[in-house]
């Protein structure tokens, strides 16, 4: 069970801020994720990147958060991308249609 626990890692470089998620993202970790996002969501000077490589589970709660980041960053004209989406999660992104709005992170 330990390996399934939700994890958040953060890494800031010169022009990007990467938040890497691992484990299961559901309603129980929303507050934790929001508190990590809060200080960086307004940073227009940084490309905000969400790395989902280690994420094993997501549902509408997590997808809703990604939609809200997408809308917020679009509203302030700041870059946001989601990268390394595992196949099982990509499937849910395709089902809901959010894939069409996500740009794969190709930043240097």
């Amino acid at each position, binding site marked *: 069970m330990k390996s399934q626990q939700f994890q958040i890692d953060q890494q800031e470089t010169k022009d990007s801020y990467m938040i890497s998620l691992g484990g299961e993202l559901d309603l*129980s970790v929303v507050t934790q994720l929001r508190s990590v996002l809060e200080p960086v969501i307004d940073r227009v000077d940084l490309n905000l990147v969400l790395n989902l490589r280690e994420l094993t589970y997501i*549902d*509408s709660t997590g997808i809703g958060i990604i939609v*809200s980041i997408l809308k917020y960053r679009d509203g302030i004209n700041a870059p946001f991308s989601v990268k390394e989406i595992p196949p099982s999660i990509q499937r849910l992104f395709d089902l809901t249609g959010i894939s069409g*709005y996500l740009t794969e992170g190709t930043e240097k």
Partner: protein
Amino acid sequence: MIRLQIPSHADYIDIVRVCLYGIASKLSFSYEDIEDMKVAVSEACTNAVLHGRSAEEGGSLIDISFEPSEAGITIIVRNDGPPFEHHESRTDAPPLQGIEISELPVGGLGIYLMEALMDEVLVQSSENSTEVILTKYVSE
């Protein structure tokens, strides 16, 4: 029938997934089907936690029953409290498509996902409780 009762709190939804995984693994479901059911059942529990009656209001438990059958499994998620908003999505179109980013809906994806991931979804509400009945058939 296998029954599980959890406090109406987000911290226990993963227990429901673990339990579902165990039960569905003993039936002949594929890995993908089990993953789909995990999401659908979590959505029903998330709705129950968010919209169900709080502990202060005297309804602080969610009942989940798993009913395996020859054809598959039916999972019933029951909570006390008024029904959550439920619009039968009549179209199969993804909800997040062909809309300006600023207009994208942040909520309402749960019921869509349940319907997309299960074979049958029924929401039954009475004055005091809501039941979400989810059925998945074992694919041939």
